[in-house]
């Protein structure tokens, strides 16, 4: 029974990972770049929420209403300035610049907030759970996050396939020069993609900050788990990312069931196994690039 519970907890954790991963996947799909500061953005979102909650008098659980738009705007601005400047050099420079930003952000947070863990306390809301038996417990909060992940991925899919802006994003992702020839300002489109990516990862950061603790040094772990979800699911597949997140979550929970020290390692091993056996991921269409 405890094993079944581990699998269920893994599925629920997968919702968090998918939420972390979809921005990473989107930015890579549109611009061909990896934002190595992706995990740190989630952490910054957590700290922004901590700072803003007393000022806005909002209930903690609604803090994302304020924080997510801030990060969407911040993402657009960062993309149009620093990231675009690095992208104009080459993707290699973008990689180094985002890594540099990640290290700067982590150490700045350490200076400002110390290395202690923080959390967003939503009180008793976190404790409600659905218990079909004594050994199995489904937290309503985790279920909500999984639902949010499904809704976010679904809306992103609909947005990309059905709306005009979504079509522009896909056009720019396919061939930005050709899109520019027909009058698309690809820099603006990149900015919109970055805004979406920053908004979703801020949402993920706040959700995980309510569920567990975060610290200035949590960024790399967020990034690695998001990345593993993307690769396990298959690069370029949004729904694959959800499955990848769930597979990663299950692997980690089963690892933790064997020995709490093996939780993260089990996820890494499943990731490396997928890389060895099926490098294009479970749902990847093309060869990995």
């Amino acid at each position, binding site marked *: 029974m405890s094993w079944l519970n581990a699998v269920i907890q893994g599925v629920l954790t997968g919702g968090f990972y998918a939420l972390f991963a979809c921005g990473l996947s989107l930015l*890579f799909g549109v611009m*061909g*770049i*990896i934002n*190595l500061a992706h995990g740190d953005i989630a952490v910054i979102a957590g700290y922004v929420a901590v700072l803003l909650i007393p000022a806005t008098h909002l209930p903690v659980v609604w803090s994302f209403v304020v924080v997510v738009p801030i990060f969407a705007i911040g993402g657009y601005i960062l993309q149009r300035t*620093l990231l675009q*400047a*690095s992208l104009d*050099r080459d*993707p*290699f*420079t973008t*990689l*180094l*610049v985002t*890594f*540099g*930003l990640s*290290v*700067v952000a982590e*150490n*700045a947070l*350490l*200076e400002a907030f110390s290395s202690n863990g923080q959390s967003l306390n939503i009180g008793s809301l976190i404790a409600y759970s659905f218990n079909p038996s004594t050994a199995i417990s489904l937290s309503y909060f985790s279920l909500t996050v999984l639902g949010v992940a499904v809704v976010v991925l679904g809306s992103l899919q609909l947005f990309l396939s059905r709306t005009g802006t979504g079509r522009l994003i896909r056009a720019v992702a396919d061939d930005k020069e050709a899109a520019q020839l027909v009058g698309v300002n690809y820099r603006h489109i990149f900015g919109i993609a970055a805004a979406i990516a920053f908004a979703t990862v801020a949402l993920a950061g706040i959700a995980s900050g309510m569920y567990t603790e975060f610290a200035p040094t949590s960024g*790399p772990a967020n*990034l*690695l788990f998001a*990345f*593993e979800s993307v*690769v396990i699911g298959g*690069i370029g597949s949004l729904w694959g990312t959800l499955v990848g997140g769930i597979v990663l979550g299950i692997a980690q929970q089963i690892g933790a069931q064997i020995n709490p*020290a*093996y939780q*993260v*390692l089990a996820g*890494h*091993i499943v*990731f*490396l196994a997928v*890389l*060895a056996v099926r*490098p294009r991921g479970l749902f990847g269409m093309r060869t*990995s*690039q």
Partner: protein
Amino acid sequence: MSATPSSPAATARAATAAAPRNVTRSARPTAWLGAVGVAAVVVLAFMPSLVSQADTSVLLNFFILLTMASMWNLLAGYAGMVSIGQQAFVGLGAYGVLVLADSGVNPVAAIPVAAVLCAALSVPISLLVFRLRGGYFAIATWVVADAASLVVSSIGSIGGGTGKPVPGMSSLSPKSFEEVTYWAALAVVVCAVGITYALLRSRLGLVLAAVRDNEVGARSAGVRVVTARRIVYLVAALGCGAAGALLAVSQLNVQPASVFNVQWSAEMIFVTMIGGIGTIEGPILGTVVFFLLQQNLAHDGAWYLIIFGALAVAIAIWAPRGLWGTATGKLRVQLFPVGFYVGRTRRRDRRTEAPPPTPASPAA
């Protein structure tokens, strides 16, 4: 396309054979630089008896970081592979020394052994991470480093998560311990820079330059791109393993959280970017700047990484050739000439030269 023997390439070859161009490694004679380099190493070798113990220790750490930065520069600057997981080999090198010293090997003698073990381990790792490219390769190497750290931390006999002291050096007096570790570090850094220089002047250097300029073109000309990358990855693992082994010997203590810290990658990346990526001189200059900054900000905890990271970001965007490349760009100064320089034959020579042969006509 007719397959006549006088293809443009053949014509060019014939012309080159008839009127040798002045192809050299550098625009200027460089023999004296070699002498300066040897003299610098000799002076550095006498440093422990010339400067204080604190300064010797700074120099030792300078050598360790320079070794790592040279290896990362080889990876990213010459082979185009951005690894953020070189701390895997730093950690494994450190633990290699710990395990060997635990079984009775002299820790200093264990340094090359640990480095070779790291190089051997890099081959299976490369089989996995080479399946991804660019940014995904970068994070995959990071995952491997994290996994290596977790595996090592779970082994109780080598200290688990808290680490363990390195035995076998207690018989040395503090002064001779300081000297032995210093000389070991100097030997490692000279080897690291020397091997990088030799590799880049070898056939591999040509292959890497061809891949950097046009990967598809190089591939279609029969260049074994993946093999070249794998050799570079292996050498970088060797160098970072040696640097980690030096850390273990000089600190006499190995902790997984410290030797597997991603901060090593951050430092080697920043140093290389600031000094000048894609030049051998760049990491040297970058490491000097790093230590000057760190010495002045050391009391301020994380601040030196914030300043250094911001500086690296600014340089990557606005001066991508780094301090060395920007400063020497027009002067063509190279301490380590690894490219080729096609000089014009001097006027005096040209006059005595035979008239250039008429290119063979395609019909011939």
